[in-house]
């Protein structure tokens, strides 16, 4: 039997597979026994009511989808009254994803979740920061440091920080988050993208631009996971285009301690279960006793590099 348990800091998960925020809700309980998931990750919640973006909010592209949902939220009070009790029925640890438009607002929100039944806070800092003209916090190490430090000050909970791929230097952002006290990083949110209907000349999303997710982003986010895992000592959770056990294993080899599955669940609602079973089968076939041994096991040290040398 393969030992599927992994540790994300102080938190133990029964297996390394969990949903990505915003791609998971109670409706999936019809198909997937939530007890079998490594963790449950709720949709990002904001302090206030938010309506989200205009429709259409989704468009499909080659091997991926664009979304411009825009974090609709019923607010923190509704979340605590309704969503939290629902998820507490399952024994898998619950991760609460939060978002706010400033570092102070983030801290205020996080402080309201010092509640039993919550295993970790995931700070979705890929959202616009009103103090930086709407640039996402996670686009810059400085803004990341500021918001994570404020969050750390108000919560003793395991604090996960979800980064954006829309940045020049994800490793520096990762370091900033780790130094400011993050317990783990989630790499990453969606990549800003766009699609136009050439018959109507209209953008396919009501919001004009949106986030790309699905298989198309995997090689980009695997690279970021590798860079982040090299840059920090805290666990990295890989997220982007994972739809099979092979994808999850690739992320783990690149340095991820666990993975989140998003878009794949829309295509195959039982995708997370397949990933868990496939990882176990892979480890069994390879004689790997603990899945945690995969983390960072990429063979990049002893690469046979040709001694190329140019002549005219």
């Amino acid at each position, binding site marked *: 039997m393969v030992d599927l348990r992994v540790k994300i800091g102080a938190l133990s998960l029964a297996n390394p597979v969990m949903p990505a925020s915003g791609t998971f809700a109670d409706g999936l309980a019809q198909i997937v026994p939530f007890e079998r998931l490594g963790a449950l990750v709720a949709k990002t919640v904001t302090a206030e009511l938010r309506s989200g973006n205009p429709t259409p*909010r989704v468009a499909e592209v080659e091997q991926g989808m664009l979304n411009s949902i825009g974090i609709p939220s019923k607010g923190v009070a509704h979340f605590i009254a309704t969503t939290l009790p629902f998820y507490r029925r399952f024994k898998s640890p619950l991760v609460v994803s939060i978002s706010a438009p400033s570092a102070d607002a983030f801290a205020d929100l996080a402080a309201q979740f010092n509640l039993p039944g919550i295993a970790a806070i995931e700070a979705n800092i890929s959202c616009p920061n009103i103090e930086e003209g709407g640039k996402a916090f996670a686009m810059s190490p400085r803004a990341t440091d500021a918001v994570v430090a404020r969050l750390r000050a108000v919560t003793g909970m395991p604090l996960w920080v979800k980064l954006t791929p829309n940045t020049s230097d994800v490793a520096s952002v990762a370091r900033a988050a780790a130094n400011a006290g993050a317990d783990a990083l989630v790499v990453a949110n969606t990549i800003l993208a766009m699609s136009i209907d050439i018959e109507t000349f209209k953008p396919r999303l009501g919001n004009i631009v949106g986030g790309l997710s699905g298989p198309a982003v995997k090689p980009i986010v695997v690279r970021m996971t590798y860079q982040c895992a090299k840059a920090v000592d805290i666990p990295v959770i890989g997220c982007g285009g994972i739809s099979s056990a092979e994808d999850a294993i690739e992320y783990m080899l690149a340095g991820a301690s666990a993975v989140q599955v998003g878009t794949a669940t829309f295509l195959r609602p*039982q995708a997370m279960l397949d990933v868990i079973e496939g990882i176990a089968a892979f480890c069994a076939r390879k004689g790997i006793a603990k899945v945690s041994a995969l983390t960072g096991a990429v063979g990049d040290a002893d690469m046979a590099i040709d001694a190329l040398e140019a002549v005219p």
Partner: protein
Amino acid sequence: MEALLPKVRPVPAASERNAADVTALVVAHASVNAEYRHLVLHAPDPAPRAVAGQFFHLECPQTDRDKPFLRRPMSVYKADPRAGQVEFLYKVAGVGTRGLATLACGHTLRMLGPLGIGFSLARDWRGIVVLARGVGLATLAPLAEMAAARGIGVSAVLSARGPAQLMSVARFTQIGARVDTVFDSDGSSAPDNVEAIMRRLVDGGRADAFFTCGSNRLMLLLQRLGRELSVPGQVAMEQQMACGLGMCFCCVRNFKVANAVISRRVCWEGPVFDLDEALSW
């Protein structure tokens, strides 16, 4: 008041729903006219227990030309638990439905469902009026059968570009529905005429409730009449979907409830909504 049930009906929790992702077998698949195709599948439980207004999320086949990425929602056109069958009536519109159209007998199709909330019929209704156009027929045909099975009379007004585009008339006449057909080709589908037919049906005591699907214009007409004549109604709506399970919030539409505009997920709070609350799309 049972007649108002759709308005106050609570949205069922996940634990009260019964969707599953099943592999269905194509047992028949044929063209109905130049645009529409009729697909019959043998499907394991719980698929054939779908009720009128519910839908399935279909994994459309990839072809050399078309690579649909997301699933596509389709209303159940007929579901027969005893025969273990589910049927769809669909229009070949783009990437996904072109893929679907390549399915042949013996092929399999992954489908998730039954999804969403179907039509509701109050116990004290004696007659309902169904106004359908285009794809809306697919959604409303099983409603007519459900009503007939409960002893509720059905009057159907079926609108189409021309007689060649009309479908499923037999589905309505077989259950003894009174059928009016209106066409663009002879001008009978004009709003004024449709309104006149509706008023006659209401006057004739045949309209304890209105049902519609498939046309924004007809929905608005019926909404106005319903408000004027105090006839409740239900509308089945469409919206682009990703998950079909209430998780992604892609499929929202706006509704007017009291004085506020709220957004609801077509896949989870719908696709059938109270006619009075629906907003134009």
